[in-house]
């Protein structure tokens, strides 16, 4: 353990934290895939349940480890890293929530939601795939610290937020079975939360620290 001091590592703590955050989002994507396979015909099998719960637990542990690493870094390192440390302390919550909301989608399957015979199956599958791609792109952009691609991704995702709201409103107005309306309302609501957390991850590359979590707010409530 003392030899740890003499061991050479090419990576700084913040670089290792960035790697860990990216891995957390990738793990969130794995939970998302498992949850989607459950609501799109696979059902809430024991195997899927184990996969979803296990990966989500790993993400939660990673969140704690990242927070510890950041407090340790803040205690040891020079004040020059304070903004990045605070940004990552906030972003780690977003990285964790992606897996969390994906797990909530899995819970829909557990409660009986199954979209395989839905009349709007194609549209639901299209949203599933778009959000999946959004998560993948967000990881790549975060790792590359690509500001211009991050801005593009934020704009793309921002447009999706309005579409989700329209679908939730439609579910409220639905005259069909309540179980279908509830499943859809929650499905779009969870997709909205996943999208918002992906956008927050992108804001850590683009925005100053005071504007983090900007996309957690509805458009009307956002500070200029």
């Amino acid at each position: 353990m003392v030899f740890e001091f003499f061991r050479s590592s090419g990576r700084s703590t913040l670089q290792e934290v960035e790697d860990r955050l990216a891995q957390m989002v990738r793990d969130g994507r794995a939970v998302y895939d498992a949850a989607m396979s459950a609501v799109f015909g696979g059902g809430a099998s024991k195997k899927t349940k184990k996969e979803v719960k296990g990966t989500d637990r790993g993400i939660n542990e990673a969140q704690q480890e990242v927070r510890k690493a950041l407090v340790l870094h803040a205690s040891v390192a020079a004040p020059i890293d304070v903004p990045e440390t605070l940004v990552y302390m906030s972003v780690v919550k977003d990285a964790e929530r992606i897996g969390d909301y994906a797990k909530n989608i899995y819970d829909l399957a557990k409660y009986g939601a199954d979209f395989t015979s839905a009349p709007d199956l194609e549209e639901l599958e299209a949203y599933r795939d778009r959000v999946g791609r959004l998560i993948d792109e967000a990881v790549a952009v975060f790792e590359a610290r690509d500001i211009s691609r991050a801005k593009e991704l934020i704009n793309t995702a921002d447009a999706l937020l309005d579409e989700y709201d329209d679908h939730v409103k439609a579910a409220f107005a639905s005259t069909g079975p309540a179980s279908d309306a509830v499943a859809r309302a929650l499905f779009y609501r969870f997709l909205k939360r996943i999208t918002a957390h992906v956008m927050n991850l992108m804001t850590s590359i683009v925005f100053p620290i005071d504007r983090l979590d900007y996309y957690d707010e509805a458009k009307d409530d956002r500070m200029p």
Partner: protein
Amino acid sequence: MDVGHVASDPGAPASRRRASVKVTLVLVLLYLFLVGVGLLECGIGHLGSGFTDSLFHGVHNPIVGLLVGILATVLVQSSSATTSTIVGLVAAGVLSVSDAVPMVMGANIGTTVTNTIVSLAHLRQSREFELAFSAATMHDFFNLLAVAILLPLELTTHLLSTLARDVAQLLSGGASGGTFDSPIKGAVGWGVGRVETTLEAIAGHATAMGVLALLTGLLLVFVTLTFITKNMRALVANRIERTLNAALRRSGTVGILVGTVVTMAVQSSSITTSMLIPLVASGILVLRNAYPITLGANVGTTITALLAALATGEVDALTIAVTHTLFNIGAIAIIYPSTRLRYLPVTMAEKLAAMALRRKPLALTYTLGVFVVMPLLGILILR
């Protein structure tokens, strides 16, 4: 905790260049620090015995010596600076080893004021404050307990200083006289000579020269130590993080070794112990795992005075530096293995913190009382 995979870093060459510059800077600062210690010795030589005798009148009383050590370290907030100055004064022959021993013990107590002040920053958050103040004051209580055991032992048997003299003679190649050949002294002597020549041109007579050399020496010691610590901290921050991270869930000997190595690297026990305060306050590091790291910090911080002593080429100077090291190792050897004594400082610190939590002004009263008022009053009364 491993927070990620290892990948190639495009910024690595620039980072290596920055590190090389910092290493060079630290080496230059270290040389200037040793020149500073040499100038203390040179300045005292010019002032004459009458002046220095009056300056150190009173420190023959070991309690006064102890209190002077506390107060001087509180003022400069660095036991390395105080002990290196003491080493310089012993090398110059104005302080005897026996007079200097209580002073280095006092420096050990005085250095804990820094993390106690750091802990006061948590005053507004009750739970955090209780943990932070416990973490800071367990170091105070350990050092007070160490002095309570080892100072009477030293005064009655001279055990520490006798053992230290044997070690010093061994380190100096068996020198039987007052001096030994030190390659560091030769290199430092050149720098001291250059500064001395410059100061002689400015000062008119021996006393002015002595005062100038003494002030320049003190300034060099304090300023260079500050920047050495700052640069070393930046240079090894990543290594410290990894090491502390690995030690978070470990206690005992490993913690002592971690504290020693980290403190040797940053050349300041205050830096090491102050880094632990927010970790304990936030609950990441438990108090009993932080405790051995603070004990290791006591040992690690003695490296600076040892280095300064090697540059003086005086056996007495090396003896007092080794005494400082043996005092800290001895304190751990006596207190830590005993199941009754080991956690006594932690328990006392927890009790004090619980009291301070109920009456927060007590924290400030304790800090000012132990580190400023009591030493000051003691010196005024006993001197």
